[in-house]
């Protein structure tokens, strides 16, 4: 995965081209697809936070939905209460999430495997209940995070029928591309190498002078920054943040997406995100095709996701993409 040695600037160029292509393409697709595209972009960020944490640093989190909630609430609060511009609000949400992630990371660095999984799971269940305790967080009703229509300059660029969903798509895609660029650079840097070294063999890494604990804390912090940015964007897409918008299933969903992508494959996070967004639609269509009753429509998406997850873990544990290359390598070796 890290074979292509491009400079950060070259990477930026490539991603900018992709971005321009995507933003241009948004003119020609429908409202629903725009919204789904925005969802994919948000999931890409969320999944890459897990990829970075689990695939590169070897830590597990079942509570990143809660970190997303922190980001979402941070953004919505600063937007609705202090009337920050939405970009600043997104950054503020990310900042709050990063600080929280640092605190969690300090604790997480002491824990391993199931203990960390248990702690983050408890966080995912416990944190959303805070919102009920403070009036400023809006309780069950949540906080509004409605950024309204696109500003004039964007409408000038985007054409006459530049709807709110197209605007969301733009925001999410730009955020996702910037994020991917930043993480790729980070993973190619010293930090990324240290994380992988510590993941593969903590003892050897510390003998080589790598501060394993510090690396883990940093990885958790960066991962939380990504997750909270995703959470803030998630709230923006919904137009509101509520305690129920960030359920336990969201935490599980992004871990699922990361596994579908092959946990140590950043590009694969796009595959994972697309799968996460399309499963409900595909299985919904399937359910209506089967002439399904209430029972079928309600449970088919879960069934499909779970089956896919199990099959991937059992038969393609290194994700949907990497496995194929490994197979080819083996083929070459054998012939």
């Amino acid at each position, binding site marked *: 995965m890290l074979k292509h040695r491009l400079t950060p600037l070259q990477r930026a160029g490539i991603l900018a081209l992709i971005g321009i292509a995507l933003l241009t393409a948004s003119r020609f697709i429908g409202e629903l697809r725009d919204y789904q595209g925005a969802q994919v972009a948000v999931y890409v960020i969320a999944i890459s936070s897990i990829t970075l944490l*689990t*695939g*590169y640093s*070897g830590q*597990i989190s*079942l509570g990143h939905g809660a970190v997303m909630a922190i980001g979402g609430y941070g953004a919505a609060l600063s937007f609705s209460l202090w009337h920050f511009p939405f970009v600043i609000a997104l950054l503020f949400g990310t900042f709050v999430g990063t600080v929280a992630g640092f605190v969690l990371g300090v*604790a997480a660095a*002491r*824990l*391993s*495997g*199931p*203990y960390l*999984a*248990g*702690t983050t*799971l*408890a*966080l995912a*269940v*416990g*944190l959303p*209940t*805070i919102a*009920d*305790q403070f009036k400023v967080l809006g309780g069950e009703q949540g906080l509004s995070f409605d950024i309204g229509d696109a500003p004039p300059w964007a409408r000038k660029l985007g054409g006459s029928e530049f709807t709110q969903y197209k605007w969301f798509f733009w925001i999410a895609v730009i955020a996702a591309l910037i994020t991917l660029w930043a993480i790729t650079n980070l993973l190619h840097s010293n930090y990324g190498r240290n994380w992988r070294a*510590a*993941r593969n063999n*903590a*003892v050897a*890494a*510390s003998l080589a002078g790598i501060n*394993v604990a510090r690396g883990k804390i940093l990885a958790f912090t960066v991962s939380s920054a990504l997750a909270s940015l995703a959470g803030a964007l998630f709230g923006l897409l919904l137009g509101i943040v509520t305690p129920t918008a960030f359920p*336990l299933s969201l935490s*599980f969903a992004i*871990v*699922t997406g990361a*596994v579908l992508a*092959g*946990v*140590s494959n950043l590009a694969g996070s796009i595959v994972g995100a697309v799968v996460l967004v399309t499963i409900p639609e595909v299985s919904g269509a399937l359910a209506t095709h089967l002439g399904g009753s*209430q*029972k*079928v429509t*309600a*449970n*088919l998406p*879960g*069934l499909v*996701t*779970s*089956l896919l*997850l*199990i099959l991937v*873990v*059992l*038969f393609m*544990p*290194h994700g949907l993409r990497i496995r194929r290359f490994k197979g080819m390598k083996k083929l070459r070796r054998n012939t």
Partner: protein
Amino acid sequence: MFIDTLLIGISSGAIYSLMALALVLVWRSTRVVNFAQSGQAVLSTYIGYEITSKTHNYWISLPLAIICGALIGSLVDLLFMSLLSKRVKSGPIAEIAPVIATLGLLGLIQSVIGLIWGNAFLQYPSPLSGKGFTFGSHTVPFSPQNLFIVLASATVLAIFGVVFRFTNLGLALRASSFAPEIAQLAGIRVSRVRNIGWSFAGAAGAVAGAVITPTSTLSPNSLDLLFVSGFIAAVIGGLDSLVGAVVGGLVLGIGFSFILQYISSSVTFLAGFIILMIVLLVRPRGIFGKRVGRNA
């Protein structure tokens, strides 16, 4: 008031202990945190529900549900976990693969239940009253059903205690979790023992599901929060320790009960998180866990 809260805490703590015990049994035998535990338990509870609605007798359904729970546990190990441990051995995913796989299994079981029984909330009544005992003019919130919960959990815990402490099977279970390779060399069929561990865990989960469900409703997700509590309890106690599971469950149950009574019902899980954090910061492997620090 204090006594009432304590009694309720013991009642829910007993259930958490059972769930924690199920997790610890699986963890000790397979080094896997079985997230499908709540799915297995709820499936056996649905089977119990089905039997009750056919026979109209809770006391027939209870043992049958427990047996089904044990069978489900055994099947999950045979069909699923052994395949997983054969296929996924290395790479960054090896550590999280069991977590993901059991989460997938949980989703699978719950959506299959939804397909069969629907997602509606069902009543799974027990013949015991849910109304509190009355002493003179004072009615405590502790009901015969609560008493039954405590007794049933205590019985299961006692049976497990005796089996582990005094039987050959218990010795084999302890040996294979302590040092699987040496146990194998000593002539213990580790894979079979591991399977027995899974079926014990399934039975414990089934008991938890069958005795707690009459106090609320039955739905595919109805035992999820119980599982989370059980997991927190197991982690507090130290995942390797059976005693720890019981202690962790009781600590958490009583703690939750007092928070519910004196602070607020909505912060219980947050409090659980805080209790867990404090315990783990002092002892990163739980109260009764082995004192093994990180290597680096």
